[in-house]
């Protein structure tokens, strides 16, 4: 029987497993995908420093470490229930049930869809699906595609599609609605793109991202924003166009697009159909928390971290004895931060297991500080309010469970 079961073999899960195994704990890692690495497997972008962040290499490095430490990484395993009996956590999977004193849930995130009429047609996929098909499976997702939704993830993956020689005809916004919310308002989109200025070098540098911080100037800029859009390494970003419908009989054949005003209102009679054989919907990410929910973990609504998330301390510990969380399940951030959080969770498990009395407190505190450090220098910020969100969760924890984190059940 293992001491620790890690659910999710992404950056957070693998880092957590490695931290535990380095202190001699017996660890099993479970993941549904057929290869470990999680969202790392699709990541490939150029950092401000000019070198490339290659997620696949990163995943291979972590995987090698798990081999060196004899960590049992099992892929193709789906966890369907997590329940505690008197002492041990019971993890129920499609490959049988297993028990352990400690469980680290690192199931990451899922993508927000933005429904568009016709979006159930084959050929319509989330932008993450196109990323995985391109970088992991090395299969072209189509000849000519259109991306609906302009956000950081969309730009990062756009570059990856272009690198793979896949033509992305244009990026347009979704139609403004209670579902798409800010994603359908050109001004809001432009404001959110400011934190990705370095990622879309050609376009926004010409606008001068500092210059655009002022709301009024943004409005003026949008009024003069060319209908044909500004090119991002060849693909026009059309902030004044919205996708009304995805057309096609048996699969995607095109997208009906209309002009929109700076605040997202559609201009009647301005619709055109642009040909495409695939469509990517980029709605952003939200934490995938279902396993901690069935385990009975208390939740808290923190909008900056992605909504309802499991309550946890800076040591990545939840109020349930032996249950830990790390990575995008605690709030949407980049892969490096997920790894740093995984290490904190691993060291916190080592501390709770009483394995390494001496140096563990110092190492644990260092790893917590490291998370903050990585966050400061993160090239991508998925949500501008993430620091505030982390602070809210920390204060909630201290107020409810005290600094050390007394555990309730």
């Amino acid at each position, binding site marked *: 029987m293992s001491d620790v079961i890690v659910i999710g073999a992404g950056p957070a899960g693998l880092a957590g497993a490695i931290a535990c195994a380095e202190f001699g704990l017996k660890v099993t890692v479970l993941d549904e995908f057929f290869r470990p690495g999680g969202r790392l497997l699709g990541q490939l972008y150029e950092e401000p420093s000019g070198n490339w962040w290659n997620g696949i290499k990163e995943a291979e490095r972590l995987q090698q470490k798990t081999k060196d430490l004899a960590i049992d990484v099992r892929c193709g395993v789906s966890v369907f229930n997590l329940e505690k009996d008197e002492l041990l956590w019971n993890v129920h999977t499609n490959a049988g049930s297993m028990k352990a004193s400690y469980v680290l849930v690192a199931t990451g995130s*899922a993508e927000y*869809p933005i429904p568009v*009429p016709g979006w159930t047609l084959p050929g319509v996929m989330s932008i993450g699906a196109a990323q995985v098909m391109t970088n992991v499976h090395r299969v072209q997702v189509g000849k000519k595609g259109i991306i609906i939704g302009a956000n950081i993830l969309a730009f990062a993956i756009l570059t990856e599609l272009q690198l793979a020689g896949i033509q992305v005809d244009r990026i347009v916004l979704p139609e403004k609605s209670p579902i798409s919310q800010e994603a359908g308002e050109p001004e809001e989109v432009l404001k959110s793109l400011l934190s990705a200025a370095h990622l879309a070098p050609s376009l926004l540098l010409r606008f001068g991202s500092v210059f655009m911080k002022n709301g009024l100037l943004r409005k003026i800029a949008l009024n003069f924003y060319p209908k044909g859009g500004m090119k991002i390494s060849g693909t026009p970003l059309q902030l004044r166009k919205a996708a009304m419908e995805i057309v096609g009989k048996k699969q995607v054949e095109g997208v009906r697009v209309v002009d929109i005003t700076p605040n997202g209102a559609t201009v009647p009679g301005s619709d055109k159909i642009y040909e495409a054989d695939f469509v990517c919907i980029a709605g952003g990410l939200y934490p995938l928390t279902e396993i901690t*929910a069935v385990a009975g973990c208390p939740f808290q609504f923190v909008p900056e971290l992605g*909504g309802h998330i499991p309550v946890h301390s800076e040591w990545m510990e939840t109020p349930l004895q032996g249950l830990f969380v790390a990575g995008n399940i605690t709030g949407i951030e980049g892969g490096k931060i997920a790894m740093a959080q995984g290490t904190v969770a691993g060291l916190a498990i080592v501390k709770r297991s009483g394995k390494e009395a001496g140096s563990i407190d110092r190492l644990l505190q260092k790893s917590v500080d490291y998370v903050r450090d990585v966050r400061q220098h993160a090239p991508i910020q998925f949500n501008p309010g993430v620091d505030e969100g982390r602070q809210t969760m920390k204060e909630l924890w201290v107020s409810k469970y005290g600094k050390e984190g007394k555990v309730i059940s």
Partner: protein
Amino acid sequence: MNDKDLLVCRCEEISDEEIREAIRQGARTITGIKRRTRAGMGLCQGRTCQRLVARILAEETGMKPEDIDPGTDRPPVKPVSFGVLGGVAND
């Protein structure tokens, strides 16, 4: 439900209009909408549509996002066969 409708729940093919109708009939939670329309009862158990339903509910009722209690997650969080769940898969 014609093709021009906007499908919010892909698994059960439930449109945003059917969701608004459920709210007009008194649903105030994601579970209340699910029970009236089946949105969220499919194989993905709301992983795709639940947060979209929450946004429609907030807009229709003026409720603040933090006041909308999310749907309830229940095992199995991923589909599992009767054979595996019952431990009779292999014989």
